């Protein structure tokens, strides 16, 4: 109970400070905060699959891109209503994740990783090659941020970045709440059981394959949400979103922050975006430095930032136990 109050207090504090960002900080900081929130949605949903269930997917960029193109295509051809667009993006990602997941969840470990990688690259080559539909390598352009009209009368403008910020923040908070609820639910606990011992879970009556598919589709929905929001933020959808190097981002972010908590991928996402900005400011060779940082994390700090921190706290609280 005590931990629960502390967690809700922390969540409220984070939410309040996020609300304050556009008023207190500059435009660029607000933009970076939006990027962090998008990556956070992507990574927190993804971590349901990797951290909670123990499945390593290397193809979630495909669902991110499906979200972006889903919103974009609806916006260009049918309706520019942002909420409908986001719904279309998530729906597209869910459909694709159902199809890919059905083929992939019968495998685990390395086969699962390579299969998702291959299907992700298939989506990439589709977005790249189907020029008439997706705009090819130029991407799908001309995505506009129309006002959010509610109940026929009220129009909430999101055209300016300062206004759109709160649109992103709304979905960010919603995603965090949803991910938290999923982790705590019996379904989430069953997923952790599958991670620890799939066979024992099977004997205990858990339909393992169906649960794996369910969490795959759920994490795909989070990815689609993040992708559709990025399409609105950047006014375009690009094939690169489905590329495997983009699929690696939530993996990196989850490991950077720590796999075992909800906050891990969020902290990891913030560090990732900040680190990229800082490194890019000093040198063009950010990939090199990022690779080196990654090596240090893998060889030295495998619990990620959150794991290392909580380890330090434990040590400070109980000296001598080490």
């Amino acid at each position, binding site marked *: 109970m005590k931990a629960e109050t502390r967690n809700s207090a922390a969540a409220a504090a984070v939410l309040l400070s996020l609300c304050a960002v556009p008023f207190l900080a500059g435009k660029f900081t607000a933009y970076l905060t939006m990027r962090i929130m998008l990556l956070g949605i992507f990574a927190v949903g993804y971590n349901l699959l*990797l951290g909670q269930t123990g499945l*390593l997917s*290397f193809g979630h960029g495909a669902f991110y891109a499906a979200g972006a193109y889903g919103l974009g295509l609806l916006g260009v051809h049918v309706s520019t209503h942002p909420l409908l667009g986001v719904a279309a993006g998530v729906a597209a990602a869910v459909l694709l994740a159902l199809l890919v997941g059905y*083929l992939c969840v*019968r*495998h685990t*470990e*390395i*086969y699962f*990783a*390579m*299969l998702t*990688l*291959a*299907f992700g*690259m*298939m989506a990439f*080559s*589709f977005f790249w*090659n*189907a020029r008439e539909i997706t705009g090819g390598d130029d991407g799908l352009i001309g995505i506009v941020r129309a006002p959010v009209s509610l109940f026929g009368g009220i129009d909430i403008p999101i055209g300016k970045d300062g206004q759109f910020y709160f649109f992103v923040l709304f979905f960010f908070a919603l995603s965090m709440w949803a991910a938290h609820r999923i982790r705590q639910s019996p379904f989430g606990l069953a997923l952790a059981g599958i991670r620890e011992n799939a066979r024992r879970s099977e004997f205990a009556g858990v339909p393992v394959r169906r649960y794996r598919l369910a969490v795959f589709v759920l994490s795909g929905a989070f990815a689609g949400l993040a992708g559709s929001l990025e399409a609105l933020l950047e006014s375009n959808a690009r094939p690169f979103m489905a590329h*495997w*190097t983009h699929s*690696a981002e939530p*993996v*990196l972010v989850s*490991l950077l922050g720590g796999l075992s908590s909800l906050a891990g991928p969020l902290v990891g996402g913030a560090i990732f975006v900040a680190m990229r900005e800082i490194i890019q400011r000093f040198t063009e*060779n950010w*990939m*090199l430095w*990022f*690779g*080196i940082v*990654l*090596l240090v994390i*893998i*060889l030295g700090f*495998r619990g990620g930032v959150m794991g290392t921190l909580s380890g330090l706290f434990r040590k400070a609280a109980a000296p001598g136990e080490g």
Partner: protein
Amino acid sequence: MQSYVHVILAGLSSGMFIWLVASGLTLIFGVLGVLNFAHGSFYMLGAYCCFTVLKYLGAGYWAGLLLGPLAVCAAGFVVERFFLRHVYRIALPYQLLLTFAFVLIFDNLVKIVWGGGALSPPSLSFLGGSVPILGRNFPVYSLFIIAVGPAVAILLWLLLEKTWYGRIIRASSSDREMAASLGVRVPALFTGVFVFGTWLGALGGGLAVPYVGLLTPGMGETIIIEAFIVAVIGGLGSLKGAFVGALVIGVLSAFGTRFFPAFDMFLTFILMGGVLLWRPQGLFGAAR
């Protein structure tokens, strides 16, 4: 009819490139149990090092093909001896990410050393021409590649099945502890196998120099995906599977490029999906 023969020949030669890369990948996975993302980078480094020997040392292509991949072996040695060795026993994501970190590092190093733009190597004098086959010209070099692929396959088979080293490698891959207790220096052996696999990938890169025309820092990323697909279709860890898979993928995508240019990548993926639905462990993979 003529065009079919040419498409098949072109497919065979591109398949042999994938095989050279996939063979090193498969060998490393089969023995060490590590899926090496950076293998495509070794291919790329092989191409760049071969190019450098060619251009700046003024040596011939064969010297480049010999020295370039050897230089890359040093990189393979460093990766295995000082990094990969520490993650054999930990969870899969960390292994994959460790090698992914080297993809980032090598891609960037290539940009620093050779520049981000595309390089075009000097043309070959030997093996540079083309011969008429069924009324159309076909590059001699492609025929050379079609011969090199099976030669490497046979040498690998001889090495693994017929020599003392091969027996030691097979023994260590199936039971590491037992081999160690019999006096095999397993860590040194693993380093050796990794460096040898690196050499195979880099050799593919060196051979690709006259073939691809342009060298770009991203050239490893394309081939690694194809090598992964080949390894999955053939069955992870099966060299025979990688060989057959590479041939099939090469010919199939050559047909795709010729007859369905918009969907050439798709054919490959459809094949992979089909194989995996029918035989989840791959064509020659052991049942799990």
